[in-house]
């Protein structure tokens, strides 16, 4: 219900799509507004990396969609999870001409994803024996 799987924002930018595209997809552009340092191999499957110096944080991205100058998509890890955690969110920028400027939409999805095993193994598995253990705990404490 309240769990945000998807974040969507739209902004109206007073600059043509080509210029917005450059800001989104070049190391120079990304490091100017998003992170502090950036590298990007702009092709599907290409690697990109962004570093925030103040936070001491680096994001490893994988470029997924490159349709100049309308769609740019990448996946990246979920902040707070281990670097090798397979769960990632997908970020997609869509650029539409709007007058002399651009209507820019960013959609990030996948926050609520959960691999099967987390539910199955982690939950159901441990729950069974639990009622038993709890009873033992109470018995132990009562005895002590």
């Amino acid at each position: 219900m309240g769990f945000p799987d998807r974040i969507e924002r739209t902004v109206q930018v007073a600059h043509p799509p080509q210029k917005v595209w450059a800001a989104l997809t070049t190391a120079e552009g990304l490091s100017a507004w998003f992170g502090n340092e950036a590298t990007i191999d702009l092709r599907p499957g290409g690697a990109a990396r962004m570093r925030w110096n103040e936070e001491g944080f680096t994001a490893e991205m994988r470029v997924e969609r490159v349709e100049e100058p309308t769609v740019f998509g990448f996946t990246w890890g979920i902040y707070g999870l281990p670097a090798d955690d397979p769960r990632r969110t997908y970020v997609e920028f869509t650029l539409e001409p709007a007058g002399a400027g651009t209507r820019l939409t960013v959609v990030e999805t996948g926050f609520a994803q959960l691999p099967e095993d987390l539910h199955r193994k982690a939950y159901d598995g441990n729950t069974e024996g639990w009622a038993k253990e709890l009873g033992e705990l109470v018995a132990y404490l009562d005895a002590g």
Partner: protein
Amino acid sequence: MPDDIEAIAEQVFAALADPTRRAILAALASRGPATATDLAVDLPITRQAIAKHLALLAQAGLLTAVPGERRRVRYRLRSAPMQVAQQFLAALARDWDSALGALTDHLDRALKDHPAGLPAGPPNSTPRTGEHHS
């Protein structure tokens, strides 16, 4: 037991809302698996109170009981529900509003610095001219 991620996240946040339970989780995170008695030594509360909180944390799936010798049950953290809650927090922390604000600022600055390279249009330094058209 929680059967969807919303319920899991709710359990985690409810568990973390109590300072004693936070202290218990923090103790288990820093020292590793421990019994109720071990925790009572470290924390300024009775073993009975700790046992109550341990039961609740276990119910929420945040702890696993590991049976040991002489019916001594040791508890260890279960990180899976924390990771679910973390995903919830990550969604809140993805600050796209700031990022997009920075992007428009960047584009506006770039336009001012390199006006020659852009197609003709009303320069943003004279915004007043636009107001009369509507």
